[in-house]
């Protein structure tokens, strides 16, 4: 950070502290809360508008520094910090959903790749559909209302 401009500090939430000096804003993030995948994902979305720089501020602490490519003001920098914090939350959620659904995605991929050709053929699927249609309808749900005598009006 530059020494020439007065720095403003704040906290968006307890876990995210920021500091801005009029030309750039820096957020310090705890990797145990914001995994690197989330930090990379969020930072990546800002490279079209900002110059982004990552630095290690200690064990499991990462500083993300944003310097807008265009004009910057104190208010704009603070808004940018808020936007990054929101995006970090999105990315954390994305990472968590990715982790929690990994097994099922891998299962479907394995099924798609390793099922035999007869199991996945279109003929097989059509035959299954035909069988379902011909199966006995014990509840008579499929009986048209005109002939079902349900007295629907």
């Amino acid at each position, binding site marked *: 950070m530059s020494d020439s401009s007065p720095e403003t500090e704040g906290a968006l939430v307890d876990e995210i502290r920021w500091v801005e000096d009029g030309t750039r804003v820096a957020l310090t993030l705890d990797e145990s809360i914001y995994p*690197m995948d989330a930090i*990379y994902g969020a930072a990546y979305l800002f490279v079209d508008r900002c*110059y982004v*720089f*990552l630095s290690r501020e200690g064990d499991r602490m990462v500083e993300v520094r944003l310097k807008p490519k265009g004009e910057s003001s104190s208010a704009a920098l603070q808004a940018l910090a808020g936007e990054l914090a929101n995006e970090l939350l999105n990315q954390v959620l994305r990472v968590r959903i990715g982790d929690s659904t*990994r097994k099922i995605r891998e299962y479907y*991929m394995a099924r798609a790749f390793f099922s035999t050709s007869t199991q996945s053929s279109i003929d097989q699927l059509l035959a299954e559909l035909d069988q379902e249609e011909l199966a006995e309808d014990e509840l008579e749900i499929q009986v048209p209302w005109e002939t079902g005598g349900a007295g629907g009006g």
Partner: protein
Amino acid sequence: MEAELALHRSLYDAEAVRDLLPQYQGVATIRVDEAEHELRLSFTEIDPDVAPMLVDHFCNHVLVETVTRRNQSLATLSGGAR
């Protein structure tokens, strides 16, 4: 004009840095010293037309390349399901 830059190895892909260097041959001479935790880059003979934003632009470029390579390696590990 000269500039210095330190990229932490845990955050930036060292191979991506090395692979990008030829693209900047026309605008600066970049020397890389590989320390244990950091890549220390020295920019010399910087083209005055690009001098003000060269290092910032280089950082963005390395970050994008690092993220892209990381995603590719994760996709490979998980069989493309990511």
